[in-house]
């Protein structure tokens, strides 16, 4: 990471924490903010949060490692979480899982080499009456079938493509 990027991250964290009261109860919201923006919480970010809250970085790591929606390693732009709880399982989640693996060319727990997708399982998503269900980032998809998997991924790819293009242009400027 470049020095300027680090400085920027530090000041972002500092602003965020101040806005949220500046005490320890701001920790998880701050981590969620970083996670959402950078797809993971780097060691540097953990240290910066710890400094800001005046706690030991191990405390921060302890929290990051506890919650399944916080990660210390980079994730894809789109994190797909397929519900594996019994109601979705009875409605055919295994076939959806296989199709996701086939179409993405990765297994559960992996990220595609282009950094677009991470594939994971989740516990009950609260969509048991409309399974199989999955989350793509914050968006929920219900009654997913193997045929629908392709369209959902294609929708993401279009957004991702636009995003990548935008970045390239920023660099050119």
């Amino acid at each position, binding site marked *: 990471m470049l020095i300027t990027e680090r400085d920027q991250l530090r000041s972002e964290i500092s602003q965020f924490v101040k806005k949220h009261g500046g*005490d320890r109860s701001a920790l998880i919201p701050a981590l969620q903010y970083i996670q959402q923006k950078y797809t993971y919480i780097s060691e540097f970010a953990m240290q910066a949060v710890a400094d800001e809250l005046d706690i030991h970085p191990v405390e921060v790591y302890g929290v990051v490692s506890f919650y399944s929606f916080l990660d210390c390693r980079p994730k894809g732009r789109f994190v797909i979480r397929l519900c594996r709880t019994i109601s979705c399982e009875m409605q055919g989640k295994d076939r959806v899982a296989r199709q996701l693996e086939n179409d993405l060319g990765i297994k559960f727990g992996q990220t595609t080499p282009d950094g677009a997708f991470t594939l994971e399982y989740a516990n*009950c998503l609260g969509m*048991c009456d409309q399974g199989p269900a999955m989350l793509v980032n914050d968006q929920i998809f219900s009654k997913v079938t193997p045929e629908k998997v392709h369209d959902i991924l294609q929708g993401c790819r279009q957004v991702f493509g636009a995003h990548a293009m935008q970045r390239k242009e920023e660099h050119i400027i």
Partner: protein
Amino acid sequence: MKTPSDRNSMTFASITPNEGLKIAVEKGRMGVLGELSESGLKGRGGAGFPTSVKWNLAAAAHDTKKYVVCNADEGEPGTFKDRFILAEFADLMFEGMTIGGFTIGAAEGIVYLRGEYTYLRGHLETVLEQRRKAKLLGKNILGKKGFNFDIRIQMGAGAYVCGEETALIESLEGQRGEPRNRPPFPVDTGFMGHPTIVNNVETFAWVASIIVKGGKWFKHIGTEKSTGLKLFSISGDVERPGVYEFPMGITVDQLLREVGGEGAKAVQIGGASGHCVHQKDFSRKIAYEDIPTGGSVIVFGRQRDMLAVAKNFLEFFVEESCGQCTPCRIGNEKLLEGVELLEKGCCSMKYLRELCSLGETMQIASKCGLGQSSPNAFLSIVKHFQDEIMGRTAIE
């Protein structure tokens, strides 16, 4: 016959918005507590603690700061009625929280919303903003001097155990979601050490409804020990899955008829931490004194393999145990290994009995409700479906 997830047929849809809050302010704290006590309302999150008792304790506590926390962490497998309330009746739930703030003397409310429901946050923030504009949140609410209350939303981050109230408070304070020893209870030492009431989404919505319709109305529905109405989340092998409102005390049979689940061989009531009810017990009642539940009902048809059900639940607990105490952390792994032996058809009766005894130990020796209830499904499946799970031929 009822239709699933039909908002307009539900009691919540018939409640005039903010009528409850107005009545609460007129009646005063004691009036609200009296009405709740009369109603017999028990917590809709599963544990079934009387709401009036909880609120009385918090109201009586002396402190400059108190908190109202809404538990929207709905993570129990098979439960989705809170998601439905958040989407359809958020205003009523916020009204219930505001009545809570008025009653116990708190100025701050927090909704702990599970990370999986992030897509509902925008809607909830909009409703909160509307309430602020209508002076139903903020300073001197409804013109009552000194009645100040506002609500913020904090997101969970994907941990089932954070639905346990003390783990939830730890999480709000920026800690790992590890349950605390109880006592002290949150009503005494809660968020930041201040008296705090933690209630389920549905509980708050019923509070607002009860203040409008009266404690007597609620008390006369249901059974003596389990009063009133309740929302149920119905999934699995039924014709019409969805959210339903039924009176407490409904029998499993009646419920199955309403949702098109006749012919089921078993029903899991109360989610992964609940009990698996065998067909021969379908005349039993869903009520705190018989089969308790937070509203999760998963129906299993004839073709279902009950061992696969037990395995799915145990995998869930192995993953979601916070790991603080040994009976739960190791116990669930041992039970899961046992299920894998059963799957392969190589578990002796002696070992199965040992596993059951381990399960009973976990029920007593675990620190929080997660570990205490995690063996329930396994134990009830072993008890009722022994002929189905023993002596299997291994699947290659």
